[in-house]
């Protein structure tokens, strides 16, 4: 196993120790780690297991059960395409397919440059503006296939300018 850095190890142990009084601390520990690092790889799960006594298999089970947790690093921008019923009947499948094509990744994957992660979401409660896409908190209402490329290009340009 790749070894974690001393600072990451210390941070993760500190997170584990926040919840020593809880009867079932696992979800809280994993949420904090997900928020802190953006993902929870097996090395980290082993460390949490050693600290809490919860088996690696159980931790892995929880991480892979909830879509909020991730085993691999997420991109800087998380492109969430709503595939809820209202969005779906308004053509959301074509939208996510287009993002998939433009970004060159499947839903759940992250681009090689680490910029984008493509996620399929269930209803995000924005049925009135279906089909909706949310990119790292910014909502794009009434999306259409022909807007996709321009949106992605915008983000790429912004990153290019910053770099």
């Amino acid at each position, binding site marked *: *196993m790749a070894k974690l850095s001393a600072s990451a190890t210390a941070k993760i142990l500190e997170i584990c120790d926040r919840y020593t009084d809880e009867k079932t601390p696992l979800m809280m520990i994993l949420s904090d780690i997900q928020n802190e690092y953006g993902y929870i790889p097996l090395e980290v799960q*082993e460390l949490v297991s050693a600290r809490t006594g919860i*088996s*690696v298999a159980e931790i*892995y089970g929880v991480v892979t059960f909830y879509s909020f947790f991730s085993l691999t690093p997420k991109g800087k921008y998380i492109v969430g395409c709503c595939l809820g019923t209202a969005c779906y009947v308004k053509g959301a499948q074509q939208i996510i397919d287009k993002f998939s094509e433009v970004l060159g990744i499947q839903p759940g994957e992250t681009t090689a440059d680490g910029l984008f992660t493509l996620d399929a979401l269930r209803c995000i409660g924005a049925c009135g503006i279906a089909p909706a896409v949310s990119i790292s908190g910014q909502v794009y209402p009434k999306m259409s296939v022909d807007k996709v490329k321009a949106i992605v290009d915008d983000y790429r340009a912004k990153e290019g300018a910053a770099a």
Partner: protein
Amino acid sequence: MSLVNIKIEGVPYQVDSSLTILEAAKKCGYEIPSLCSFNHGECNVGSCRVCLVEATGARGLVASCVYPVSEGMEIRISTPKATEARRRSVELMLSNHNMNCQQCEKNGHCELLHVAQITGAREGAFAGVRSETYLDELAPGLIRDTSKCILCGRCIARCSNAHGLGILGFENRGFKTVVGPAENRSFADSPCIQCGQCVNVCPTGALMEHSEIYKVDKAFAEGKHVIVQAAPAVRAALGEEFGYPVGTPVTGKMTAALRRLGFERVYDVNFGADLTIMEEGTELLHRLTEGGVLPMITSCSPGWINYAEYNYGDLLPHLSSCKSPHQMQGAIIKSYWAQQHNVDPKDVFVVSVMPCVAKKFERQREQEMVDGLYDVDAVITTRELARMIRRAGIIFNRLPDEDWDQDIMGDYSGAAVIFGVTGGVMEAALRTVYYKLTGKEHDKITFDEVKGHDAGIREASLDINGTVVNVAIASGMKSAKILLDDIRAGKSKYHFIEIMGCPGGCINGGGQPYIRPSLMPNEADDILDTYKEKRAKALYSEDERQVVRQSHNNPQIIELYEKFLGEPNSHKAHELLHTTYAAREGFNEVKR
């Protein structure tokens, strides 16, 4: 305990209020089919939906394995609605199941097939997409085939709650759910100790031992000198495969069967066990008198060795350097026996019949090899031996009782027989250590303080001629961990510790016949609570029948040292009979 009044199929009963419907029904003489519920709620997740019944006060049908009885409840098992629902539950399971039953080694013990027959479930009642499946054949001991997995969770409960390991878990969700080690890894790439306890509880063929029968067949075909040796615990359980009551020793019929299978020599691993005591007892005395690393811990159980190497790399110097009995005996067969019979060791093929699947891993350890040869060339489990016997058309129950070969090795003491049960190695060692320290035999012969048949820790403090020896015994890793953490913390007061990988020791090994109450109508209701004790008794009774009760009094052991090894822990003994250990990474780097 308070009682409640219930009715089953209209007949009134009084039952304990703490029971589930399934348990209460069993007490009243009804076996409601079920899969995920096992061993008094060791696993009880209500996930398989095979045990659905009608009960008043409940909405719809209820899973009887998790639904408690209550006052006035009326339970109906065989209404058309409940019968239909149970059949549908099984049919749904079959629709996502690999139905190659004729080549499945669980056939005959498969609980899914059993409930399918009982409920009248048909294959192909539902057609559609099937889950993606995985086959893991990399580990020497175990095979995991998710195409047979019904997601009941029994293996997870056994590995984690009962055994303290937690290698197996549910992963992913919904249709993609699988049971396996984290990352859906092979057992070989996880800290799994390959004890096989999960195999013992799996209701289907999803978890199986890695069969080596084909290797034995090949050795016969190549005309090798194929020699077989069987461990003590095998004789206490093999009979179960042929309809004998649990706890019937079948030593005589087993040796007769092995001879009819064509093995050139049929040896008892007990000889190797006596040899182990000579080596290990001497090692303990050295450590006691010359300030060696204490406590010394036994090294007979390969599951335990795996656990130590994965989790307690810092404590490895505490382990006895002795190989396990069948490895020792294998090494002696390929040296002393081969020499005496003028045979090239390369032409000798040693087969061990073991109650264990971790032995399949152990025999392939590089550290155990002598001159580039394995001590043992194939390990088959008690269950695999039964398969070979059936395949050969041998009618086991009609065999005469025969004896082991005892030409130049094979004689054994009562001390060796009890190796198969937790506390046995300790007791055998104490009998010899007592003699070495006092110059006379222990009057009572036995050391009943260390006897047992279950998981958990036992301890004793013995004053042997002024030397106080504190001993402890643990079986199952959950118990072992407590003793090991004490050693690590410098708090251990013991001199000698026996650790066995499986709860109860080898009698409950991962290669032993399956205990399936629903498939054993002639056994008592509580067979899951009593089988370990019954098997243990079979071994203790053989100890009592032996004339020689101590390893150091086995005449062939004495002769082996005189003619070949010199003395215990000699240079030659170290070359052949001792080994080394190395810490290992649990989740190793895997190229994917």
